[in-house]
């Protein structure tokens, strides 16, 4: 649903880096290089960002219509 806060394997906090990573990769930068720049060295942490898909963005529109405006 959302990016996990820590790496599943080693526990390094990676949640804060995802927005940055996603924006740079979408802008056409090489994912490997972006990860190097973010100082994510181990492959356990690198796969967290590479393989993450933020599904919450696809779910939210349905709830936005459901919840009454306050």
């Amino acid at each position, binding site marked *: 649903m*959302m990016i996990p806060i*820590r790496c599943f394997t080693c*526990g390094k906090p990676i*949640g804060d880096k995802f927005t940055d990573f996603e924006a740079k990769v979408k802008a056409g930068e090489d994912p490997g290089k972006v990860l190097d720049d973010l100082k994510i060295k181990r492959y356990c942490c690198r796969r967290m960002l590479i393989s993450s898909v933020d599904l*919450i963005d696809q779910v939210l529109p349905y*709830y936005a219509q459901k*919840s009454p*405006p*306050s």
Partner: protein
Amino acid sequence: MTAPKVKVLQESDDEISLQLEGVDRSYANAVRRFCISEVPSMAIDDIVILENSSVLYDEILAHRLGMVPLRTDLERYVLPERCDCGNPLGCQKCRVLLVLDATAKERPRTVVSGDLVSEDREVCPVNPNIPIVKLAVGQSVKLEAYARLGRGKEHAKWQPATASILTEGKGEGVFVLKVETSGTMPAKEIVARSIEKLEEKLKELQKEVEEKAAQ
């Protein structure tokens, strides 16, 4: 054996490399392991959810909050089991209250770790930009979170060192200990506390053995 010697090979914000000389491999390895599993750190443990209309279930929200690394001052707080308050809910010395109150009013909003308001300014999320949950317009999250000290062996969220590696150095009986911190405390403090905890445990063991031998 020569007197123990320590040399700092490299030090950065989140990492430290130490060269250990004149210590046993077993001792160096115990220090490495204690960095991960025995040095206490702060993390959210108990949560009272007052309102949650977000798309994440209460337990997922609670788990995410638990994983957020918090700044830890080990001089100021004690482990709940070592605290003399005897109160299951804890006291000023063994728990910290953090409050989260967020509503998406006009546009969708990402609730981040920086939105947590702590009663102790020193105990706050290490990084204020960790996303917790996204809210659609009209949704809100309201909760009270209680943080406490805990150890890595109990749950990985209390692990102060995210990597603790011991490698062979140059020469006999020389080791290199590399410790990476999650940000809760400086890497060099983790190593210092680790040694402190190891000594503490050895003293307990010694006392136990002496008592048993005297019987």
